[in-house]
C-alpha cells in the first residue's frame, strides 16, 4: 500500500490506509495552493514529504493536523474526524514550541493532563517514556536550560506521551547540528520500531527524507499535486551506512529525477 494520489469516489480506503485526504482545497491571497487534492497515507509507515520550496509541505501537514483551516475538503483518520483522534506534532522550532514556564518533565505531562489523566497515571507514563528514551539529563530543568537536541527530545516525548495514532514531524531536526541529527534519527527509528506509530515527516533534506521513509511523497510546485511516490524498502533499523547502500542511492536518485523534472517543467512553462 502506498501514499498514492487517490481518485475521488474510489471504493473506500483499504485496511492499510490510515489517513485519507479528499478534495482538499486551500488558497492564499486568491492563489490556489491545493485544489481538489486527494491522498492516502499508509498505516504504520513513515512517509516523508519532499518538494520544491513553497509547494506547501508544511501547509499540507498543518491542514491535516488541524492547525490551518481548509477551504474545502475532508481529512479522516480511520474514518474518524480529527476531533476524535489523538495526534502528536513535533515542530521545527522546539524553542518556540515548548512551554518555557514549565519544567521539562511537566512539558511532557501537559498533553496527559489535558486528557484529564490522574497525576499517578501522568507520572507512570512519563517514567515509561524516560525509560524507553534512556534519558540521562535532568528533566526538572526548564527547557531553555537544555541543549537544542535535548529540547527536541522533550518535544518528541511530549508528542508521544498520549499514545498518538499519528505523529507529525515538521522538519524536526533541521535546527540541530549533524551529530545530533544522526542521533535523533536513530531515536526516531527506535520509537517507530517499538510503537509502529504512523509518522509523517516534512523534510527539506532529501537525504533525510529518504533515509527515514518507507515512502517519499514528492510534491510539485504550486498548485500542488503529487509528482510521484518513491518507495524505499531498506530493512530497519537503518544506520548511517545505509546512506551509502545501492538501494538508498537508487531511491535518492529517483527522487532527485522527479524533483528536477518538476522544477524544470515549471521553469520552461514560465
Amino acid at each position, binding site marked *: 500500500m502506498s501514499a498514492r494520489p487517490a481518485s475521488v469516489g474510489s471504493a473506500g480506503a483499504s485496511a492499510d490506509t490510515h489517513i485519507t485526504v479528499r478534495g482538499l482545497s486551500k488558497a492564499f491571497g486568491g492563489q490556489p495552493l491545493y485544489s481538489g487534492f486527494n491522498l492516502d497515507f499508509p498505516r504504520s509507515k513513515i512517509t516523508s514529504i519532499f518538494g520544491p520550496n513553497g509547494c506547501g509541505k508544511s501547509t499540507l501537514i498543518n491542514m491535516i*493536523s*488541524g*492547525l490551518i483551516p481548509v477551504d474545502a475538503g475532508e481529512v479522516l483518520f480511520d474514518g474518524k474526524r480529527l476531533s476524535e483522534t*489523538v*495526534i502528536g*506534532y513535533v*515542530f521545527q*522550532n522546539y524553542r*518556540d*514550541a*515548548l*512551554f*518555557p*514556564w514549565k519544567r521539562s518533565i511537566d512539558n511532557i505531562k*501537559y*498533553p496527559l493532563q*489535558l*486528557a484529564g489523566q490522574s497525576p499517578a497515571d501522568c507520572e507512570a507514563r512519563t517514567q515509561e517514556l524516560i525509560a524507553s528514551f534512556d534519558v540521562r539529563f535532568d528533566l526538572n530543568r*526548564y527547557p*531553555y536550560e537544555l541543549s537544542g537536541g535535548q529540547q527536541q527530545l522533550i518535544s518528541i516525548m*511530549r508528542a508521544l506521551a*498520549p499514545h498518538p495514532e499519528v505523529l507529525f514531524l515538521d522538519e524536526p531536526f533541521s535546527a540541530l547540528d549533524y551529530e545530533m541529527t544522526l542521533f535523533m534519527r536513530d531515536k526516531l527509528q527506535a520509537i517507530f520500531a517499538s510503537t509502529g506509530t504512523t509518522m509523517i515527516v516534512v523534510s527539506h533534506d532529501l537525504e533525510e527524507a529518504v533515509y527515514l521513509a518507507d515512502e517519499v511523497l514528492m510534491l510539485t510546485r504550486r498548485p500542488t499535486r503529487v509528482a510521484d511516490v518513491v518507495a524505499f524498502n531498506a530493512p530497519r533499523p537503518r544506520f548511517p551506512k545505509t546512506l551509502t547502500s545501492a538501494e538508498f542511492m537508487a531511491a535518492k536518485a529517483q527522487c532527485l529525477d522527479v524533483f528536477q523534472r518538476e522544477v524544470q517543467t515549471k521553469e520552461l512553462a514560465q
Partner: protein
Amino acid sequence: MEARSLLRTFSPAFGAIGFVFLWWLVAQLKLIDPVLLPSPQDSAQAIWTGFVKGNLMADLRVTVVRTLLAFLIATLICVPLGLVLGSSVRVYRSLEFVIDFFRSTPASALFPLFLVILGVGESTKVAVAAFGAGLLILFNTAYGVMNARKVRQAAAMVMGASRTRVLVGVTLLESLPQTFIGMRSGISFALVIVIVAEMFIGSTDGLGQRVINAQMIFNMPEMYAAIFTAGVLGYTMNLIFILVERHFVHWGGK
C-alpha cells in the same frame, strides 16, 4: 585580580558616593545659598527626625497605600481586559486609537474632570492614578498577547487544548513578560500621579503634601527629606518589581 573584582562589586556605589560628596562640597563652599541647598548632614538629620519624631512615616504609609491601591485596581481591571483585547486583533485595532489617545493624554490634565465627578477626596487621587497606570498595563498586556508566539498556541491546540485553556494556560503566560513591563511602568506612573495629587488637590497628608508644605514654609531640609523619601520609595518599588518579575517570568528573554 582581587582588587579588580572588588572594584566591580562596589562600582555602583561610586556614583552615589560621588554625588553626595559633590553635594557636600557645593554646600561647604556655599556655592549655592545654604537656605536653598542645605548640607547632606542637615538633610539626613531631617530624614531621621522626620521618621523618629515627625510623621514622615505616616505620610510615607499614606502614599504607599494610595499608590498600591491605584496599581491594584488598574491591574485587576486592565490585565484581563488587555488579554481579551489582544486575543482579537480586529477588536484591538478598532480601539487602538482611543487607547493610544488617552495614554498620550497627560493623566494630570484629567484631575479637574475627576474632581468634578468624584469630589475632593481619597477616591479622586486613586482613580486618576489607576486610570493612568491602567492604560499602560492595558496596552502592554494587549501587545504581549498579540505578539505571543503562535507556535506555542498551536502546540497546545494540536494536543487538544480548548480555546479557554489556550488563552489562560498559554497566551496569558506567553504575554507575561510584556505584561510585567506594563505593570512596572504602571506602578511608577501611579506613584507620580499620587504625589502630584497630594500636592495640589486638597490633601492633608502624603509625601507630596509634605514636600509642598515644607517648600511653603521654606523648611528646606524637611523638603529634601520628603523628596528623598519619595525617591527611595520609587526606587524600592521598582526593585521589588524586578525581583518579583525575575521569579515569576524566569523565562523572559530566553
